């Protein structure tokens, strides 16, 4: 079953996945000894720094050649090594019905591909990964992935989320439970269009909690507003419908002014949200992942365009503050 190609399999070649490496902030919380090198002194083979020998240090770590270059012979230099520690990564996916839009190039699919790629990268380094849904819906809200079979579970979880995308609600899931799971995590990645309606301000509270204890919150924003406006412009006359709801009979005419107003409203909303989420560890780049222009093309071609867009944009994601992707370590 696992040999079959699933729709949520990220369209990245194995070579590309092999080239990608996760970079963590030096002060990210750890889960103890692991495969990831931290800028903390430890017992790995990677050189970290020189320091003066102190009583009690292992004499075997003295660098005698460097010590001879010291002005005083009694000043011995000790080589220190970086520590290998296991970190935790939490990936929160926005699974609102609106994420299934645009129909031909759904953002949820991009989000699932990104999540599966991040899971693979983290698991390959021996880290622990949490996959969580932002909004309530059928299936497991949070799944913990570690050890053997973690990738397969991640695949099943993502496939289930994709199949049940129309059954999700707009309301947030139980954030406390997510936070409990997130407690030992070093970094949180939120994949969303950030256009959700949050009258109870659950997202700012969640973000502040996620940024506690030197943890970081990276936002991978998926922006398809211009793409969808392009679809409306091409149709000129259309029945406008809400995501996941039956369309009404009222027919509308495209209006550039109205769309400009909507664009401004979205910008204001994002500005306000960015301000509300900021708590020291927020990594929300100014440039989101922008959807390509709408084109009239075959459905299969549109899906290929989305795959190409993912393959080109994902390795260059501007997630620099807490979590870096791309390049070899």
């Amino acid at each position, binding site marked *: 079953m696992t040999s079959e190609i699933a729709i949520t399999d990220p369209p990245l070649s194995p070579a590309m996945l092999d080239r990608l490496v996760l970079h963590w902030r030096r002060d990210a919380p750890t889960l103890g000894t692991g495969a990831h090198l931290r800028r903390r002194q430890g017992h790995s083979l990677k050189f970290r720094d020189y320091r003066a020998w102190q009583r009690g240090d292992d004499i075997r770590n003295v660098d005698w050649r460097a010590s001879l270059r010291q002005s005083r012979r009694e000043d011995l230099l000790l080589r220190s090594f970086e520590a290998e520690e296991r970190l935790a990564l939490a990936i929160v996916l926005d699974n609102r019905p609106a994420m299934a*839009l645009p129909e031909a190039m759904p953002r949820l699919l991009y989000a699932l591909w990104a999540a599966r790629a991040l899971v693979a990268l983290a698991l390959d380094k021996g880290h622990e990964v949490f996959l969580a849904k932002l909004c309530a819906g059928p299936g497991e809200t949070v799944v913990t992935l570690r050890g053997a079979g973690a990738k397969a579970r991640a695949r099943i979880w993502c496939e289930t989320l994709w199949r049940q995308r129309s059954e999700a609600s707009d309301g947030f899931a139980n954030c406390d439970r997510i936070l409990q799971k997130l407690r030992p995590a070093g970094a949180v990645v939120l994949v969303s269009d950030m256009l959700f309606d949050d009258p109870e301000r659950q997202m700012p509270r969640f973000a502040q909690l996620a940024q506690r204890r030197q943890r970081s919150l990276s936002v991978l924003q998926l922006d398809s507003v211009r793409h*969808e406006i392009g*679809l409306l412009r091409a149709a000129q006359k259309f029945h406008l419908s809400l995501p996941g709801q039956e369309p009404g009979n009222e027919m509308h005419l495209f209006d550039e002014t109205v769309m400009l107003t909507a664009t401004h409203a979205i910008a204001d909303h994002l500005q306000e949200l960015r301000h509300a989420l900021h708590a020291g560890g927020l990594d929300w780049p100014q440039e989101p992942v922008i959807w390509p222009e709408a084109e009239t093309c075959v459905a299969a071609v549109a899906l290929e365009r989305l795959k190409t867009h993912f393959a080109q944009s994902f390795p260059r994601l501007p997630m620099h503050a807490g979590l870096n992707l791309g390049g070899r370590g």
Partner: protein
Amino acid sequence: MIWTAVPVVLAAAAVLLWHMQKPRPPHIAVSFVRFVPALPPAPGGWSRIALTIPRDPLTLGCLLAAAALCLWTLFDAERSYQATRPDHLGLRVIFDRSHSMSAADGGETRFARAFARLEAALVALGNAGAVGQCVEVIGVAGAIGAAQLMQPGSSPQAETLAPLPQGGDPALLVAAAARPQGECALTHVLVLTDIAQPGGAPADGPPWGWDQIGAPLGNSGLRSLDFRPAAFGQTSSEIRIEGVSSGQIPPARLRLEGPGGLQDLNVIPDPDAEGRWSALATYIGAGDYRASLLGGDGYAGDDVVLARLDRPTGALAEWRLDTLARPAALEAGGPDAPLVTQNDRVAPDDLSRPILITYPGFEAGLSGRAIGPFRDDAVLFAALNFDALEPVLPLPMPGVLPPGFVPVLTDDQGGTIIARRAQPFGLILPQPRLDLPDPQRSLSLALFFAGLADLLTLPPEPQPLRWVTTDEIEVSDAWRESLTARPAAVPADLTVFSKTSAAEEAMPVWPWAVLAALALILAERMLRLARRAERIL
């Protein structure tokens, strides 16, 4: 036809309306709808049909062109049908009833085969769908029979067309086919015969179908029997029998049965004419003769001939010469026999029969005259030496030459020494003289006997023959049927009846129009499939 066209027109209109439909406004769901203020409603609602450029002009063009081609096909097919369906079919069947049609040909007689072809032709004629039709059957053997007008739907009677014991003649078949039409207005002529077509069909008149029946059959047949009278110096008369052979058969074996018994004759091929041969038999005497070809062959009607001969066996002549007795080889003849006489015993009636007239020409002593103008006569001059003749040149014939005689040899004074008449045979010569010394004696005898031999050499006399079958049924002119090994020709095309009686119609175009319409429909389907694959998002 108009009711057939109506559905096509309605279908074309429906196709046009279908393609004039405007696409329904799409239902579009956007993720940021909660940020979108109220959009202006579309004015005037939405109508299904619009007089605008069709949304898929290529497929519409294919379907409309296909519909137009179908309409055109309907009209063109109607025209073609009317053009190819004859209003009237008139068939004249020339049925060969000659005796060779009774020849067995692969287990079936040629007559049976021809009759089956006649029935097939009548069936094809009935299936042609003509409004009116008539069939005229003419049997031809030794003569052209009466035309039988057949009622539509009736079958021909085999007895009325059975072979007759008569030899056929291709010219009679052609003449019968070309006879002016009678009650039946002719559109086609069909000749059913075992004879090859002599030449092509006439340029004018209805088209002919020459249906040659039967496979080639090797055959030998008796063609003629001549009586060759005995000539001077020949002891008896002869019978010469001629025959023909055709095809791959063994050499003929001929037997002659006459008053003197049976004679098996040697057949001698004619080196100058392939397939012809002859045989010579001794004429025994007057009586009935029966010549028979032994062994079977393709046609039996020409294998036996009967002839009655009443001619004498030897040469005859009426002799009125005093200077020379009648030779022993000559029998004394009557008024019908050639006459050998002196010029002073010629009666006026004698000039109407073959005659040799002598006159006293040779004399003793030298003549003193020279040979004058003469015309070459191989028979007379073959045994004559002019150098020996000129010194003793005979006297010219006294008096005027009888009517019809022309000089052959004259002296230098214009006197006629030898004269000849062509028809009936006649010669005027100097008398033979036994009483003169040589060379007058020898010259006179040589000249006389050369003329006498020429007088008594009569041409062969063709004898009237009767051909009989083994059943003793007499077949007139059976020799005309002998060439049964003629090459077989291609059977006539009986499908011509389903075509127009006028000129050949060109192939109708409407099947191509149907094909083009189908191709257009296929193209429309392919375009629509392509559009479906390229569904606009």
